[in-house]
């Protein structure tokens, strides 16, 4: 394999505490090494920022509901279907890009890893088929477990060890990465057209509460010592006044400690927090509670969050929170798709337009930014758009610009139709903080890598780490918002596994993507295997023998093997 020497760049690597110092980075055989031989190809990174490849911690980019979004919105392709360059496939779609466009766009922004945030286990094969076809970037997927019948029965009976054995089995069956919880209990209730709006609402029939589910799954996660913590989309998403439910949920992490060999410190990752930081009790007095939520998060070392920034675009919302999508359809009356999945979960899809002419959308935009700007620990606060829910991931350059430039934020506030009302309901206009490239690197590289348990090889530039490297045409001197946005959206170079995949924003190599999944060894558990057999015989519509996603579906698989038998 080829050898490279990246010279004269400003390096931003929070994992080593390197803040914009000039360092040369040597690459050999797909890894970062101490020094390069004289035969190495020299890449001149003068005046450029050098960072590790970015890691996306939460996006909906592969699987059944994403694909519903694609095909039931042909209008999303209008003006957005094209082919760039010689070596690439046709790209299509804006808010829900095709698999080819997904891989290329992430790469152009300097991303080398993306987590598909919600994989319905029964549809795992579909998720992996799409991941298989997505070029360049490494991917993993989190199976949704927060409304799973097995899980609810085990946790209700306080059988954490059985639940852990089941989760280990499920991760192997679905080639999954960790535990995703979406509207715990509420999605099961949705199968009867109901919901759980607080963490103490009992789940119909199963007679368990969201709080018990979350606590039980935290215990399960730490029992197994998974690389990632539980990854939670809380109850009552998107409703005015929901920040109290959010705080109640976050408090469930108190008293739990992370147990794992990956250096992960958090026991709960609270995702797209923007949707959960709402005050008021109706859309009229709707306001930001980002400060209250972040005050709590800043104090609690064992929680990580991602923002879920609203990008002010026409997009396509999709979530395993089935009742929420039905609610949203009631608000905007755009086409509603829903799928309830037997014994496991559900999902809904509704297009949505975050218009700068609507007060609530402006407030949502402000809340997302406030979360990042109020954060005291960028290593625990990550930038996402909950793609495509608050906006497409392709808007990351713009979000980074808003975070790095008060001027960019002020310009946007001025552009709102109801600027005064947005300013009144939020604090964003009074925040002077401008994030640095070092902080951005923490929020998009070192931080998410640590939260995902991948910090040993990813998210940093230390010798021995995987050579996933993004080089941008900007540095801390760059202040022009347009220049920041342009540079962040078009990497000068992207190295993936030590190979140049993007040069000047143009894809030059399809890369060799890897699918990550977690294989946990647990003690033989006859009870759980009996329960699995019984549920497949009686209640599933597929045979147990056809549930497994074979390893052939995970290209160049990167298996994280664990032993939880001790």
């Amino acid at each position, binding site marked *: 394999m080829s050898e490279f020497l990246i010279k004269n760049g400003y390096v931003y690597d929070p994992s080593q505490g390197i803040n914009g110092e000039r360092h040369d980075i040597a690459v050999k055989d797909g890894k970062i090494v101490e020094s390069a031989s004289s035969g190495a190809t020299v890449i001149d990174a003068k005046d450029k920022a050098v960072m590790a490849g970015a890691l996306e911690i939460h996006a909906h980019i592969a699987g059944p509901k994403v694909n519903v979004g694609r095909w039931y919105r042909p209008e999303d392709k209008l003006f957005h279907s094209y082919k760039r360059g010689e070596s690439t496939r046709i790209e299509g779609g804006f808010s829900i890009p095709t698999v080819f466009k997904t891989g290329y766009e992430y790469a152009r922004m300097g991303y080398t890893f993306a987590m598909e945030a919600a994989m319905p286990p029964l549809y795992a094969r579909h998720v992996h088929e799409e991941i298989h076809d997505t070029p360049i970037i490494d991917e993993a997927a989190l199976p949704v477990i927060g409304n799973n019948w097995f899980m609810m029965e085990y946790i209700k009976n306080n059988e954490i060890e059985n639940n852990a054995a089941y989760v280990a089995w499920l991760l192997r069956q679905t080639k999954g990465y960790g535990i995703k919880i979406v509207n715990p209990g509420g999605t099961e209730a949705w199968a009867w*057209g109901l919901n759980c709006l607080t963490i103490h609402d009992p789940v119909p029939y199963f007679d368990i509460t969201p709080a018990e589910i979350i606590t039980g799954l935290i215990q399960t996660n730490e029992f197994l010592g998974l690389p990632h913590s539980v990854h939670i989309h809380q109850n009552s998403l998107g409703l005015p006044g929901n920040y109290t439910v959010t705080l109640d949920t976050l408090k469930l992490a108190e008293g739990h400690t992370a147990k794992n060999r990956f250096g992960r410190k958090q026991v709960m990752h609270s995702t797209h927090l923007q949707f959960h930081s709402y005050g008021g009790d109706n859309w009229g007095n709707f306001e930001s509670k980002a400060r209250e939520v972040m005050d709590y998060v800043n104090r609690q070392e064992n929680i990580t969050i991602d923002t879920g920034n609203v990008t002010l675009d026409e997009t396509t919302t999709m979530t395993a929170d089935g009742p929420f999508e039905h609610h949203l359809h009631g608000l905007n009356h755009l086409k*509603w798709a829903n799928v309830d999945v037997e014994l496991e979960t559900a999902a809904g899809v509704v297009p949505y337009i975050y218009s700068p002419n609507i007060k609530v959308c402006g407030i949502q935009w402000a809340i997302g930014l406030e979360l990042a700007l109020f954060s005291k620990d960028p290593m625990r606060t990550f930038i996402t758009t909950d793609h495509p829910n608050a906006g497409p991931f392709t808007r990351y350059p713009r979000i980074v610009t808003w975070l790095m430039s008060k001027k960019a934020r002020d310009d946007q506030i001025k552009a709102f139709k109801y600027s005064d009302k947005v300013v009144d309901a939020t604090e964003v206009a009074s925040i002077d903080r401008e994030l640095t490239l070092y902080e951005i690197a923490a929020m998009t590289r070192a931080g998410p890598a640590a939260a995902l348990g991948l910090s040993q090889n990813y998210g940093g530039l230390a010798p021995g780490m995987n050579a996933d490297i993004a080089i941008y045409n900007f540095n801390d001197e760059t202040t022009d918002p347009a220049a920041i946005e342009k540079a962040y959206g078009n990497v000068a170079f992207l190295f993936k596994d030590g190979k140049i995949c993007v040069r000047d924003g143009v894809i030059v190599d399809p890369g060799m993507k890897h699918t990550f999944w977690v294989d946990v060894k647990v003690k033989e558990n006859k009870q759980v295997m009996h329960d699995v057999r019984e549920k497949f015989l009686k209640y599933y519509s*597929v045979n147990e023998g056809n549930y497994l996603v074979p390893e052939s579906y995970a290209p160049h698989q990167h298996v994280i093997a664990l032993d939880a038998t001790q």
Partner: protein
Amino acid sequence: MPKVVTDVTCPFCGTLCDDLEITVSDDNKKILSVKNACAIGAEKFNHTKEPGRVTHPRMRQPDGTFKEISYDEAIDFTARMLVKSRKTLMYGWASTSCQAMSIGHEIAEKVGGIVDNCATVCHGSSLIAIQDVGIPSCTLGEIKNRADRVIFWGCNPAHAHPRHMSRYSIFPRGFFTVKGHKGRKIYCVDCRHTDTARVADTFIQVQQGYDYELLNAFRTAARGGPLPDEIGGVPKEKVYEVVEELKTGRFGVIFFGMGLTHTLGRNHNIDIAISFTRDMNEFTKFNIIAMRGHWNVTGSGQVLSWQYGFPYAVDLSRLDKARYQTGETTSVDLLTRNEVEACFYIATDPGAHFPIAAMISSSKKPTVTIDPHINCTTEISDVHIPVAMVGVETGGCAYRMDNVPIETRKVVDPPEGLLTDEEVLTRILNRVNQLMEEA
């Protein structure tokens, strides 16, 4: 010793039963018995034994007869045809694996083909309706575990999806449906008294072509609005009575088929059926599911969607963008307007299903058909490339009518020397690449 292969997925209809048990001879060459399948599914496996299977590609001669040729010759002919033609209809895909489709799409992207599947003459109108109004739906296991109101509208699973009723929709006992069919109310709406109607509790005979009106009446009744005395031959009292029963259910579902998609109104019928379903969610839980026909037509829609964003009729002939416009990029319209320069058919038999005018147009163009068997389409083709039967002689991913992906299995060896769809398509792709480089 004969051996039994279990958990076999049936490659016939969209029900995609995955509990078949097939006994094969110890040399892996012959199917000895098929368990759990319906009559049609069993036949799909059993007829591998029938004599007369084509095992070599065949090329039509000037006198109209076919002559055996090698795979290399057939693949070269196909690749040259594809490269030469500026616009090739690449139709079918509904009876092959998703992996094979993926390779086919790569070819289409290279040569500027138009990829279309059987939805174009089947549930395409459902897809259009969903693009207009969305769809509240669920997996078939949800029906089994929860549904207590089941409507079959314009479909006849007793004939078209024979095990649907016993596996999912009428008879099974599920978690919340311990009484099986006794706990469910079954409705059948059709213009004829079908065999499905015979097992329904209530049969509603709608006058042919009046489905839209009747569904509209259902919506009105659900909202408590006034109705004329009779709608499409159904008295208003009946409509009020049925809608009231549906509202008192805990979980309802509508299954619909060609009786809605291809009668007067087409996509509008589906549109209003979905709208009725959506309305019912104000009162109880309600879902709707299309009874997809071919076993993997759903899969073709899925793969096309994640690669190009459209579920069928994907026109790649511009080479740099994907286009989709029903009526313009759909197979029958392309053929009847004489807009394509060549035809490439795989894993489906348009000759048996397309309007005669479309096939007359098709028969005048260079045509290659990839199919395990002789069918109406192979008989108007210049080259017929036989392949192994997917789901019997080779495996691959398929999608059920509720979009659940299930792996099909290889049960027996294909006849000696026979290639699979994936192998043939890969070789065509390689040859296309070669020819394009040479040019």
